[in-house]
């Protein structure tokens, strides 16, 4: 029994050797930080390190949830994500349907290429572009306003505009990605359905309503649930760099990710920052499990696990 086990291990040794570097990397990059979440339950001291610092129970969490910030970052993270998901889905589906109804193959391809382009631009460069539009002195929009005889707007210190700006920027950057996904599903639809519909005299709108949209439903529900499972996470660059880390905007731009970063790097409030991180990891984990369970109810093959 033992020798057979040994022989088995020897037989598969090369495969285990192949797995080894990756396993080591996962332990270092992913699992060690997981064990490091105990830092949220400690009074962290740089000299002592994570494990030797004294415990302080759930004090960090109590402090965090007593602040107004806890509410603001939760609200911002969830609300922005919900708006991104709804608008993003509607726009991408509309574009992909229009694309699929187009006849000119070359134009189709060109449109797809152009729409996907912003997806490749790093969010730092996106911040420069936004700055080009919104800078108070040189910004394109303020110059237009002045030419039209209106007052300049100090964009980077007026919170009221930012929910709209962030939604537009996010749409600009990610619309192409989602369009590619929906379009791929659309071109996979069996064309005989459409041919039959045309024979039966169905109008374009009827074809879209009764064939295209129902065929997209599984993809829509899966992609939406996937996004919902990530609703507790935000694109750090979008909320930190694009508004140029501007203080007056914090009320509408602070999310869990930017809060954790500021606590760690700018205000040295490690305890609360770590507590917010753990709050994000745990709620995020529950949401993934929940979303996966829901996907499983729609379509068993599309679950993550």
């Amino acid at each position, binding site marked *: 029994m033992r020798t057979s086990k040994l022989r*088995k291990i020897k037989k*598969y040794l*090369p*495969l285990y050797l*192949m*797995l080894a*570097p*990756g396993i080591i*990397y*996962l332990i270092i*990059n*992913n699992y*060690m*930080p*997981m064990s*490091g*979440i105990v*830092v*949220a339950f400690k009074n962290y001291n740089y000299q002592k390190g*994570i494990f030797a610092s004294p415990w302080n129970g759930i004090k960090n969490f109590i402090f965090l949830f007593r602040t107004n910030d806890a509410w603001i970052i939760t609200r911002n993270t969830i609300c922005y994500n919900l708006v991104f998901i709804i608008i993003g889905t509607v726009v991408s589906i509309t574009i992909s349907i*229009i694309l699929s*109804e*187009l006849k000119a193959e070359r*134009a189709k391809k060109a449109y797809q290429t*152009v729409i*996907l382009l912003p997806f*490749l631009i*790093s969010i730092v*460069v996106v911040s*420069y*572009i936004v*700055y*080009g*539009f919104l*800078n108070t*002195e*040189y910004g*394109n929009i303020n*110059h237009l306003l002045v030419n039209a005889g209106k007052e300049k707007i100090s964009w980077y210190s007026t919170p009221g505009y930012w929910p709209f700006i962030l939604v537009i920027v996010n749409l600009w950057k990610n619309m*192409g990605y989602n369009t590619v*996904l929906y379009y*791929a599903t659309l071109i996979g639809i069996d064309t005989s359905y459409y041919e039959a519909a045309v024979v039966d005299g169905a109008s*374009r709108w009827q074809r879209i309503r009764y064939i295209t949209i129902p065929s997209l439903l599984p*993809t829509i529900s899966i*992609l939406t649930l*996937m996004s919902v499972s990530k609703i507790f996470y935000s694109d*750090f*660059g979008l909320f930190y*760099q694009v508004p*140029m*880390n501007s203080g007056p905007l914090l009320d509408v731009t602070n999310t869990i990710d930017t809060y*954790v970063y500021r*606590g*760690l*790097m700018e205000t040295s409030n490690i305890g609360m*920052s*770590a507590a917010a*991180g753990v709050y994000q*990891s745990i709620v995020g*984990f529950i949401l993934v499990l929940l979303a996966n369970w829901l996907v499983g109810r729609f379509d068993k093959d599309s679950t993550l696990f």
Partner: protein
Amino acid sequence: MVEGSKKFQIIANIIMVLLCAFCILPLWLLFSSSITSEKTLITEGYSFIAREIDFAAYKYILIDSKQLLRGYGLSALVTIAGTLCNLTLTTLFAYPLTRKELPGRKAISFFLFFTMLFNGGLVPSYIMWTQTFQIKNTIWALIVPNLLMSAFNIIMMRTYLTTNVPEEIVDAAKIDGAGEFKILARIIMPMSKSILSTLALLVGLGYWNDWLNGLYYVNNDKLYTTQVLLNKMLLDTQFLMSSASHGMSIDTSKLPSTGIKMAIAVMGILPVLIVYPFLQKYLVKGITIGAVKG
């Protein structure tokens, strides 16, 4: 019927052209701002049509300042080294997971998969990389954390291998006496060219565009990649001026500071824009297989 269809095609094309303009115009503003003369910028701001064209900003960042070129070189180095290491790790991990008879395969898959569900977050990672591994201000900081391997890509590759490489081929090779490493190199790799190109593109784009590792772990200007440099400059305009002209007597007040920012941003996306049309096919493929069966 035909009439209505023609009308529809025209309207649909108009909508698509407008959308494309929405996607392209912001990039055009960036470019146009970078070639506008400093004088025009001050009076007219960043505009879509430059009244007075001037390449002074490019001359400065390409000739007078060493910072950007150094950043470019570093970005290229990090992207190439990082992508190669990533693909190696990914292939080595994905192949054994396709072998159904491997003892412990399920457990290892779960070990991999769990990293997609749960993570320790920024604070513990930061403390670990800086204190335990002393990675701050080394080139490793730009390559290793988070980007070196991802469960998502491994699962993508594993799925590709299970559907595209028949088990019989591997079995036949084994009967012929080929070792596992030989099978991987001679059979699996040649059959994975398409998925490897797709992954290389996604991973390479990730490395080229990455600025987070630089933000967290690097504050030595010798180690700024293009994106990190851009990131630092966004919040600190004076940075480039002060760091670039050591030893040179450049009159910093005459520098085209408003245009330089935009010119560096243009340089930051230029390589991506150049390779994109050739690799678009792989990118689209990567996006679709990644999401449909992650």
